[in-house]
């Protein structure tokens, strides 16, 4: 009975997502495309940043590698194999990056990941200009004949990303990653090979992020280093996961949903409030404020806080029963 109840929510959500394209305008379909895409990459990040507690601020590295791998290979080997190549290349690149960055902990790990992503951004813009066309932009072959199908591609990607990360998170690996997040030394004393599991989480995360990058490139039709290797991509993935609830199953989806709709609403209604001077900057000012407030008052994110509040209530009920019993 409990297993069945656990699957009501995902089914309900999927049905809703399946209905949306038939009611929504293409504009909102595109908004949902970005919600699904970045929720998927958010799930991937959540493995490393949420469950394992390794705050990667450089996931754009894998996103960009996936995007360029797809863009450069699709014309030669076709879209399907190109997506596969994107997945493989971003996973392979995660090995050396992981080996370098995982020697460090906490803020130093975060700083190292930023440095890696920035390094790839500069290399793609200059040194590898011959290959990537640098900032002049690279035309990208479409993944699907009709642009409105990208909605389903992104939805599929998100479901796969959710499934993979949920499976891992609720298995032995998930327990081990959480132990690493809580205290890496203690984790080692219960036989956990912490470097190996951190790298394992990063490889899976990079694979999914790389695929996300290839879908992003195909939908946009052209890519430049600034679009796919930029800190904006890394930060967006981290903030949506934190807002939704890092280390929770559904956090990234809730975070992606709120961030995308908030920026769309802000862009439209705030845009023509003239007294603000640069209305768009005001929108991002609110975005920064939202992050500060979430970190200060709701560090577990929306889903995390709701779960904690529920557990508090459940534990309270439990305590009443047991004190009577002792």
């Amino acid at each position, binding site marked *: 009975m409990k297993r069945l109840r656990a699957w009501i929510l995902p089914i309900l959500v999927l049905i809703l997502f399946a209905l949306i394209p038939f009611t929504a305008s293409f504009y909102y379909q595109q908004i949902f495309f970005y919600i699904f895409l970045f929720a998927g990459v958010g799930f991937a990040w959540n493995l490393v940043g949420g469950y394992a507690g390794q705050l990667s601020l450089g996931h754009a590295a894998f996103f960009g590698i996936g995007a360029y791998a797809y863009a450069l290979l699709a014309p030669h080997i076709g879209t399907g194999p190109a997506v596969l190549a994107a997945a493989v290349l971003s996973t392979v690149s995660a090995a050396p990056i992981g080996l370098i960055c995982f020697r460090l902990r906490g803020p130093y790990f975060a700083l190292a990941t930023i440095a*890696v992503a920035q*390094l790839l951004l500069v290399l793609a813009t200059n040194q590898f200009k011959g290959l990537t066309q640098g900032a002049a932009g690279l035309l990208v072959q479409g993944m699907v004949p009709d642009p409105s199908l990208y909605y389903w591609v992104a939805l599929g990607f998100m479901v796969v990303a959710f499934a993979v990360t949920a499976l891992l998170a609720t298995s032995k690996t998930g327990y081990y990653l959480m132990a690493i997040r809580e205290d890496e030394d203690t984790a080692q004393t219960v036989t956990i090979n912490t470097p190996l599991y951190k790298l394992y989480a990063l490889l899976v995360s990079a694979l999914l992020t790389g695929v996300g990058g290839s879908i992003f490139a195909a939908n946009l039709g052209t890519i430049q280093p600034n679009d796919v290797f930029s800190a904006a991509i890394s930060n967006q993935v981290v903030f949506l996961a934190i807002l939704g609830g890092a280390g929770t199953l559904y956090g990234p989806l809730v975070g992606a949903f709120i961030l995308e709709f908030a920026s769309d609403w802000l862009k439209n209604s705030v845009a023509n409030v003239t007294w603000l001077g*640069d209305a768009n*900057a005001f929108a991002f000012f609110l975005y920064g404020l939202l992050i500060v407030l979430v970190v*200060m008052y709701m560090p577990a994110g929306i889903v995390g806080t709701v779960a904690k509040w529920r557990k508090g209530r459940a534990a309270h009920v439990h305590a009443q029963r047991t004190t009577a019993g002792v």
Partner: protein
Amino acid sequence: MFLQTIVNGLLLGALYAIVGMGLSIVFGTMRIVNFAHGQFVMAGMYITYTLFTAFGLDPYVSALVSFVLCFLLGMAVYRVAIHRIIRGPEMNHILLTAGIGLMLTNLAQMVYNTNQLTINLSYSHRDLVFGGLRINIAYLISFLIAAVVAALLFWFIMKTETGRAIRAISQNAAAAALSGIHVTRVTMLAFGLGIAVAGVAGTLLLPIHYVDPSVGDAFSLLAFIIVVLGGMGSILGSAIGGLLIGVIAQLASYYLGQSYSDVLTYVVFLLVLLFKPSGLLGRSRV
């Protein structure tokens, strides 16, 4: 030309060092991961720009004003936001300060819009020439002021009562509290001091570099690279880290090409993180 490049590197390095120095107090000693450090440098630049354009105040004079204003701004930010999460995981430090950085960047954009603002000083492009070497006057003045600030900071941290309290807190906050140090007040003071030095760095940068809302992020990463390279918590370390990066950037630009200065800076940073995680002078923190 090699000597000229080294000299340019040292002059540029002094500016890098002062950008990193404020952070070496905040991140190095107090362990507060301030990802908005670059935005405070930007704040110093905008303060100096406003004073220069509105009152014609020479930037090297307004350094004091930006020091005081940023000091108060830093204390306010610490009191309102950072103090609440200081005990929490470092991940929250990073996210909170990144959020603050985003707020400052966009506040600047709302007030000053996105134009790249510069100030034209009579001497910002004039050189002193001696023995075949060209020393840019603006860089030279900034080099000297940076050296003075570094010395003052070193003296303050090492010799004064508050400085000793700050170092005590950085070693063991609980023990410091037990020995009568008002930890919260001193931490706030140290944070304010770090931000004030960032403001002064902004003042010294303006004669040489434009300011627009996007410069904050670049300076934040640069400051972290310098503090980590120089070693945690040591003012001297970040001075050396800054000079080192300045020389590396200039040599790379001259011998390999301008974009290689960024590439080499990141590569050196990653290598030092890998092989000498404690940085050149500081304590290990793998």
